[in-house]
């Protein structure tokens, strides 16, 4: 019986204009996705190297840089990779600095989200599911065909299931056609994408998308069984979609920015400047100690001066660390708050599966921190000692007006063989690890599905038709 309802629904859907309009919009967006991805990917490969090659690490003992390889699956979930730092600088003072955005990027263009699969599915598909099913029950009820159908030996659960499956199949069919078009363009224009290793994450992402669209179909069925007229169902669903897909994820960031205890940009800079001013003040201390005869010879003067300088650098480093951990706290809080929206859960689990976006950024940072320890040991073994901070040459004027030139202090560059330079273990988690990482968000999506479908079922059973 379910099969008969399913077939009838499928034929009905295929002949409607809304599916055609949706198909055209979806296909155009997937084609645009293919073309724009290839352009961005080629330029990334040119700048940051081939993702299939060995990780590139600058062989130097004065600090090194780690590069995030371009991810061939970013056409799926880009996760704002284009504005995230692609390079991390490992410094000898124990800090890791992120690459800044180039001053030659066109900052006058509006910063818009890239059209990746995740964007298309999150926005267009959520709306499409609503438009496809908002009148599935209420429409038939209004036309009187629902009574006719229920008067046969068919249970309401079967009717609901048939309608649900039909909508799901149509949506997935449009998604697969669009996805294949995008993949075809990417393959025609660029040979390296996607490789064998990318197939499993890609399939997992499509499955994840199925959970996401299915929840909106269930939600529409719920609203459709609940309301008297189709227009009311559509209106209430629209409101829910706008709140869940567009408003909630953005509001989470804004609320976290206000609530999270994190020093601001301005505050951090002001504190750092204050430390710099304090340094000048304490430099006087040295002169006083010279005057009072505590410090006598040249080397001692230079050492005392160096100590103060290092203290300043240490204090500034601490301020920077607090700032960065504040940013992390903000991001964590925003992610937690955003979980109210299935759209955010979908995005986060998508990022975990294809190893991109904020999830990758965190993995990259953790791997870099681990690498830093290995790197510092290596530098120490090669040049003997680690000189954490560069210091410019300074002239120290003594009370008797003689001037001591404190020379520049600079980390040593090892001239010998560096073929044993430690390799960077690039964060490329295995599929089970990725799944484990995405588990919570996937569970949330499934929960949404179960609640909406059960809700639709209960209401449909209890309501008069």
């Amino acid at each position, binding site marked *: 019986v379910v099969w008969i309802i399913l077939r009838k629904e499928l034929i009905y859907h295929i002949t409607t204009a*809304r599916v055609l*309009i949706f198909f055209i*919009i979806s296909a155009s*967006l997937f084609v*645009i996705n293919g*073309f*724009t991805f290839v*352009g961005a990917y080629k*330029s990334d490969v*040119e*700048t940051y190297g081939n993702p299939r090659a060995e990780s590139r690490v600058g062989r130097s003992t004065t600090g090194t840089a780690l590069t995030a390889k371009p991810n061939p699956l970013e056409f799926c979930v880009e996760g704002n990779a284009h504005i995230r730092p692609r390079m991390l600088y490992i410094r000898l003072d124990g800090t890791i600095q992120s690459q800044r955005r*180039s001053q*030659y*990027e*066109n*900052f*006058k*263009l*509006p910063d*818009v*989200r*890239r*059209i990746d699969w995740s964007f298309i599915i999150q*926005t*267009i598909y959520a*709306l499409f599911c609503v*438009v496809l099913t*908002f*009148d599935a029950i209420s*429409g038939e009820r209004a036309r009187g065909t629902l009574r006719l159908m229920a008067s046969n030996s068919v249970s309401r659960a079967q009717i609901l299931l048939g309608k649900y499956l039909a909508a799901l199949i149509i949506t997935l069919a449009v998604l697969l056609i669009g996805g294949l078009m995008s993949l075809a363009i990417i393959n025609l224009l660029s040979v390296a994408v996607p490789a064998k290793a990318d197939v499993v994450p890609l399939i997992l992402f499509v499955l994840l998308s199925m959970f996401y669209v299915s929840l909106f179909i269930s939600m529409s069925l719920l609203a459709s069984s609940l309301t008297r*007229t*189709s*227009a009311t169902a*559509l*209106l209430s669903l*629209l409101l829910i979609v706008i709140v869940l897909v*567009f408003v909630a994820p953005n509001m989470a960031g804004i609320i976290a920015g206000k609530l999270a205890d994190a020093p601001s940009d301005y505050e951090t800079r002001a504190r750092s400047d204050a430390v710099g001013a304090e340094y000048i003040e304490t430099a006087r201390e040295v002169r006083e100690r010279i005057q009072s005869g505590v410090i006598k010879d040249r080397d001692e003067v230079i050492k005392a001066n160096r100590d103060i300088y290092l203290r300043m650098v240490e204090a500034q480093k601490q301020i920077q660390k607090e700032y960065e951990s504040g940013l992390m706290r903000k991001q964590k809080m925003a992610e937690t708050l955003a979980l109210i929206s299935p759209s955010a859960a979908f995005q986060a689990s998508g990022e975990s599966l294809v190893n991109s976006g904020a999830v990758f950024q965190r993995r990259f940072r953790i791997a870099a921190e681990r690498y830093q320890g290995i790197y510092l040991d290596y530098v120490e073994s090669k040049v003997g000692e680690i000189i954490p901070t560069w210091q410019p040459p300074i002239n120290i004027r003594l009370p008797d007006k003689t001037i001591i030139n404190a020379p520049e202090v600079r980390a040593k560059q090892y001239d010998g063989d560096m073929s044993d330079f430690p390799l960077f273990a690039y964060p490329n988690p295995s599929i089970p690890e990725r799944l484990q990482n995405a588990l919570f968000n996937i569970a949330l999506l499934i929960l949404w599905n179960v609640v909406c479908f059960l809700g639709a079922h209960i209401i449909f059973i209890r309501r008069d038709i």
Partner: protein
Amino acid sequence: LNYKYDAVSGERESGLLKLVLSNSISRGAFLTGKLLGRLLCLLIPLTVGMIISLLFLLTNPSIQLDGADWIRISLFFGLALLYVSVFLCAGLAVSAVMRSSASSLIIPLTMWILAIAIHPVLSVIAARNLHPIDSPGTMGRKVQSIEEEYQKRLNEIWAIQTQLRKEGKDEIEYVIQYNAVNMEKGKVVDKTKQDFLNQFTAQASFAGNLSRLSPAGCFSNATEAIVSTDIGAYDRFMEASRQFWYRHVEQRKKRAEASREEARKIELPEEPEVEYPLAESIQRAAPDIALLILFTGLCFIAAYALFARCEV
């Protein structure tokens, strides 16, 4: 859209439309009444929302609004109404032809999603591809090669200067030459960076022009120009800062020529007062305002034409 979707189709469905039109009411008057009535309904939440937001602002002592600011806020309010009426008229037009209220919601909804979520992204993508500019890497390398070239010349002069000083000879000629080359370097680098910025502006205005295809794009262009948060205002600020710096350099040069003591003084010229005249803002916003009016007019005419010809 939510307000307007059943304006005509809803009344048609419930049979009220026949009843209303059987009186001596023209279809034009009926449509205008519907439009104005719903515009007034939207006016209330919009006004209340803006007043609450303004009250919050005004309780903060660091924010002071002057006369021109209030005019800008009023203009913003007017633009918001104009923007809303585009969608009201579009909804009205669709509602006039559609048989059921639900279908008359789907079409404007699709248009709205395209206008809000897809079109802005597409205009940026189109601008990047149809109006390409040099890549950041190319730009960076260009500036670097200029700087390196000049640095080579500067190093040569510096070497001669050091040599002369060691020999106890007069080096002043080379000091002057060094400064001249250094200044030339600054000017050439600045000119190159300016060229890049002009490329940015050209690409951004291309994207801006494309965004005018949708009322949402026109609305954001017009409001940005009115409150001076657009690229035009940014360029104005940057130009004022640049002029300020040139004045500073000129003053220093003059002081350096006057005497050694004068040269040591660090006095900055008066800070630039960057003004964003209201007239200029309105001028920048004018094309977008005109387009918004055009959109509204076209949608209303379409609504009227469709409603006049359709069966009730």
